[in-house]
Every structure is written in structure tokens, then in C-alpha cells.
């Protein structure tokens, strides 16, 4: 039956369906599964439909048949709580310091990032529960500079294999590389962007239109009249605006480069522009942002059906976004704050997205990311994020 196993798969996050489970029962019934090895392969072929989940399957299998503990998934939760603590710290440093039993002065010396890291460490030091995000006060009294204690998501020693080879195989986790968290390659980007198409008739008229041909032929009293149409071609116009300025985008250059390469090879009409941090009066056609500025007011003349994709980390000092003369380059201070210009672009191109290479669970830390995400639908520059962005771009209306 293996009902429990099925539910473990479901809980661990593999999309398994009851139909597939029934198929597995059928397979068991047919008597083609003779041993655990067969079961491992067949259950995987039947239940798991993507190699991205093979790693999870291996873990679940090892857990169910061998008792290897499952990994916790509390990294995100810790982030959230740490952030809540930071907020609390900004509001009332003394109270928090007292509650944690640490010196306020010591904490003040830390930068916000260090502070968050510190809070996270503290949360991990706890042995007990910290669910719900408000129990941290109860931990007061422990030493601030303790040893690094028990890490919930940290290292684990796998269960011992008792020579059951399927379990051993599962324990090896051969499919680790295929899980969703892999880096973005050109091929992956290509897959995600494949749906970004808009087919229109274009080019030479070389495709026979049968319906029209028949109608015209009948009109012609049986004398054959051939009607040709132009083939459907992808006519989607895409504007790609890339933040290539400053050091803040440096860690993401590789990913953005990949996206850029793909866009150039894929779309007929892709225009690439560059900006630094955020958009003021102009976007530049040259990567050096020096020779060919294009005033964004001219963009109104473009086809409003054009898809605008902006890539940037959206991380900057708040005044760069909000102030009238926010630009760090004196030549582009026209008196309109960047946030207004972004709104303008969003209104001009109803199909627009902002792709952010910063991982989504870090967005909450930056004020400007949140502000820009209110204007443009913002997606993480990852495979999942790209797919969501593409469906946002292709939405009709």
C-alpha cells in the first residue's frame, strides 16, 4: 500500500497525484515489482514527474525506508523573525537589548546587516521552539556571546544503510544538481522565455490558404485559383532595460549577460537600453551610458503593445528614487523624481515587469525595492520568477 510513503512525498513538496498512486497500486498488483530496488525505480517513474523532485524523492525514500531524518525548511522563517527583530530594534533598542540580555551599546556598533546576522544566529542558538515570531522575548537571559549551539538546518549525518541498495542510492542524492535551486543558464532562460511570443503574419506570402482557395475556385467556376498568405512569425517587440551601473549589480552581471544574450538571439525587435540604479530622464543605448541617450518621453511614440522588461536590483538610497534631483549624475536632473518617471513608463507600457536578481526573501530589507515593486510587477530573476514574469507579460488586457 505505501500510503504513508505517498503522504510523505506530498508533505515534502513533491506534486504527487492520487491517480498516479493508483497506477502504482496497479503496478504492485501486476506483480512486476519484486523488491525494494524495483519499487524505488518504479514508484519514482510513476509518481515523480520531474527530475527537479528526484532529490526530494531520494530524501523521502531514505526517510521512509531507513529513517534518515528529513531536512527542516526553516531558513525563511528565521529570516522573517530576524527582520521583525530588526524593526523592533529600530523602534526601541533598549527594550530589545534588555530582553535579550545584551548591551545596547554593543549592538549599536553593528551595521543593520550584521545586526540581522546576529539576530539570526541568536535564533538558531535556541534549542526550543521559536515559531510564531514573538517568543524571542522568552529567551532573555542567555549569554549573547555563546557557543554556536544546535543548528536546525545545519549538518546532519545521514542514516546508516543496512545494505539495502535502493536506500543507499537514495541516500547518495544523485539528483541534487537537478533541484530547482540551480543557477540560471542560457538554456533555462530560453525555456522560460519561449512562451514570450506573439505570432503575426509577416514575410512573403508563401502559405496556401486552403479555405480561401476553395472559395475563390468556386467563384471562378472550378478554375483553380490559389490564395497565399504570409506565414505567422513572431512579431513581439521587446524593450530590455538593464541596470549596468555601479558596483551594486556586479554580482549579477553573469545572469544578466545570459538574459541579454538570449534576448538578442531570440527576438527580432529587441531594443536594449541601459541605466544606473533607476531611470530618470533617459535610457542609454550604449552600455557606457554616455553616447546615445534616449529621452523616455519619446517612448510614448512606440507601440504600447511593446513588452518592457527592466532588470535591476532596485537597491539604492531612497533619495535617488524619491528626490526631485535624485540622480547622481548632474546632467539628468530635470526636476522629475525617478519614481514619477517609472510610473510614467508603467503607464505607457501596460505589459511591463521588473526582474530583480536579488533573491526574493531579501526584498523586504530594502525600501526602494518595495517602492518599485509597487509600480512594476516585480519578479525574481530565477527560473520560477522568469516564468511568472512571462505570464504577466503575456496576459491579455
Amino acid at each position, binding site marked *: 500500500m505505501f500510503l504513508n510513503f505517498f503522504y510523505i512525498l506530498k508533505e515534502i513538496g513533491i506534486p504527487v497525484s492520487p491517480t498516479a498512486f493508483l497506477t502504482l497500486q496497479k503496478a504492485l498488483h501486476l506483480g512486476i515489482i519484486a523488491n525494494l530496488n524495483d519499487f524505488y*525505480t518504479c514508484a519514482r517513474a510513476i509518481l515523480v*514527474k*520531474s*527530475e527537479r523532485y528526484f532529490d526530494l524523492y531520494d530524501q523521502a525514500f531514505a526517510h521512509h525506508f531507513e529513517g534518515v531524518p528529513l531536512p527542516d525548511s526553516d531558513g525563511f522563517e528565521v529570516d522573517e523573525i530576524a527582520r521583525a527583530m530588526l524593526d523592533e530594534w529600530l523602534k526601541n533598542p533598549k527594550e530589545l537589548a534588555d530582553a535579550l540580555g545584551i548591551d545596547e551599546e554593543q549592538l549599536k556598533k553593528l551595521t543593520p546587516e550584521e545586526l540581522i546576522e546576529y539576530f539570526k544566529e541568536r535564533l538558531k542558538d535556541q534549542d526550543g521552539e521559536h515559531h510564531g515570531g514573538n517568543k524571542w522575548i522568552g529567551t532573555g537571559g542567555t549569554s549573547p556571546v555563546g557557543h554556536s549551539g544546535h543548528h536546525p538546518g545545519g549538518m546532519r549525518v545521514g542514516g546508516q544503510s543496512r545494505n539495502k541498495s535502493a536506500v543507499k542510492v537514495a541516500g547518495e542524492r544523485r539528483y541534487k544538481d537537478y533541484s530547482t535551486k540551480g543557477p540560471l*543558464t542560457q538554456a533555462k532562460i530560453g525555456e522560460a522565455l519561449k512562451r514570450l511570443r506573439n505570432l503575426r503574419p509577416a514575410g512573403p506570402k508563401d502559405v496556401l490558404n486552403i479555405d480561401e*482557395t476553395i472559395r475563390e475556385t468556386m467563384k471562378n467556376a472550378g478554375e483553380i485559383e490559389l490564395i497565399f498568405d504570409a506565414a505567422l512569425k513572431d512579431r513581439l517587440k521587446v524593450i530590455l532595460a538593464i541596470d549596468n551601473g555601479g558596483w551594486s549589480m556586479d554580482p549579477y552581471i553573469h545572469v544578466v549577460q545570459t538574459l541579454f544574450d538570449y534576448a538578442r538571439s531570440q527576438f527580432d525587435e529587441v531594443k536594449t537600453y541601459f541605466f544606473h540604479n533607476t531611470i530618470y530622464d533617459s535610457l542609454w543605448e550604449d552600455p557606457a551610458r554616455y553616447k546615445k541617450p534616449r529621452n523616455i518621453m519619446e517612448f510614448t511614440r512606440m507601440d504600447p503593445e511593446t513588452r518592457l522588461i527592466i532588470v535591476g536590483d532596485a537597491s539604492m538610497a531612497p533619495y535617488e528614487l524619491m528626490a526631485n534631483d535624485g540622480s547622481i549624475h548632474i546632467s539628468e536632473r530635470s526636476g522629475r523624481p525617478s519614481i514619477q518617471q517609472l510610473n510614467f513608463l508603467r503607464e505607457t507600457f501596460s505589459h511591463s515587469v521588473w526582474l530583480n536578481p536579488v533573491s526574493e526573501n531579501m526584498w523586504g530589507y530594502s525600501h526602494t525595492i518595495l517602492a518599485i515593486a509597487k509600480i512594476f510587477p516585480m519578479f525574481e530573476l530565477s527560473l520560477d520568477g522568469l516564468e511568472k514574469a512571462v505570464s504577466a507579460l503575456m496576459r491579455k488586457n
Partner: protein
Amino acid sequence: MYQGPNTEFQGAKKYVLDQELASIVNISMKLEMPLLLKGEPGTGKTMLAHAIAESLNMPLIVLNVKSSMKLIEALYQYDTLTRLNDSRFGDSKRDVSDINEYIKMGKIGQAFCADQRTVLLIDEIDKADTDFQDDMLDVLDQMQFDIIETDKTITARNRPVIIITSNAKKDLSDPFLGRCNFHHIAFPDPKMMRKIIDVHFQDIDERLAQNAIDAFYTMRDIDGVEKKPATRELINWIRALNADPDFRAKDLVKGQLPFLGVLFKKSPDYERATNIASRRRLF
């Protein structure tokens, strides 16, 4: 279900089968479900279908999916133009008033109409858009389709063994996946590769094979290569090395790697590989 003398798939002459895949193929045949294969290009997804057909002695029907393909093309085609032409000029032996004369079976139709059980390979299904996949569901589920023009239903006489391949990193639609069994062919390890080379080159020089495989895996590890060489490239490379009379197997160990263009097909990859190969020679 066809129960011939050999209904268990055990590998073929030119195909090295790993045990895992063999049992998945067999179970899919028993369950009468299509088998969806994914994996890096060049891991032998297409070859598997050929091997199954060869070892089970069934005819192989290949449907190469194209990006603009509509499902109907895979099922049947109503040849309007010929009919139009015949009705106009009337110089053929076909009976213009009989539509059936102008219906041609597509690949799926052929597999359904065949007198014996066939292997139907639907190659690179990810090329077509999702509509194609969704439309195909019913056909594969019911094992039948209708010809609208004649109002006839074509039902599969023998349920074909269906192998579907996909190169995509992206998943196919959920309902589609629900009707298939799934396997991901991982890249073969050096030991497996040795076996694969041995079936392709029966009388290959021991040292050449080993050195070539070693060099091949070293080169697959080069960072930043966009299209890693796969089995297909290795086989072609060994063929090239074999054909070169000046080539000696020990050169490979020294880091002299000729014909890198056979392995690396993209120019930046090629340059990278040549650079690294020539650097190795210095040490």
C-alpha cells in the same frame, strides 16, 4: 495486449541499458502508459526507442515534433489540394467523391492502424506549444481519434509502446505528466561510457578508448562551457581519432587533443577548450 515471445526489454545491440531504465521501460509497457524521457541532449533518449523496437522486433514509427505542428498533422491529413486538382482535371484513378481516398494517416494514425504492435516515438515534444501536448492527451488516453471529414473513429488496433522525449528543462503541463511515466536519463559515468564505447566500436584499441574517455570527462569539467559535449560527440570524436593515421593514443595523455571542434560546437566553447588544452600541454 500483444504477448509475443519476447515482451521484456533487455537492451539492444547498439544500446547499453542500465538496469533502472530497463525496469522502467518494462513497467511502462505492462501498465500501457507512455514513458516520458528527459535528459541532457546526447544521453540516448531517442536511441532508446530504436533499441526497444529492435529488441522487441516491432516496427518503429517516429514522430518528429516541430514547433509549428498541430496535433491533427500527427493524426491524419486531408489532402484538399489533390482532391481539388482531381475534381478539376479528373485525370487520376482516385474516386473524387470518396473522401477516404484523400485521407492520409499521420504518424500517430499509422501507429494506430498498424497490424502489429509498434513502438511510437514522439521526439522532442517540448518543441511544440502546450496546446499540442494538451490535445494529444485524449488521443493517447482513449487510444482513438475521429476523422472529422468522414466522421469515422480510428481506434488503435494494438496499443503502441509510446516513448516521448523532451529536452526541456521546463516541465510539461501537469495533466500531460499525469498520464505518463517519467524518467530522467542522467549523464553516464565513465564506467558506463566505456561500455557504450565498446558496443559502438567493437575492435577499438584499449588504450585509445580509455584515454579518450578520460580526456572527454576532463573536458566536460571545464567551467563556463555552454554546451557540454555529450555521448554523441564522444563517439564522433573517437571515430575521428580512429580515422586519423597520424594519431597515437598516448598523445591524449600528453594533452594533445586534436579535432576539438567535434566536441565543442560553439565558438566560445571551442576557444576555451583549445586554450585550456594548449595550456595543459606546457605542464
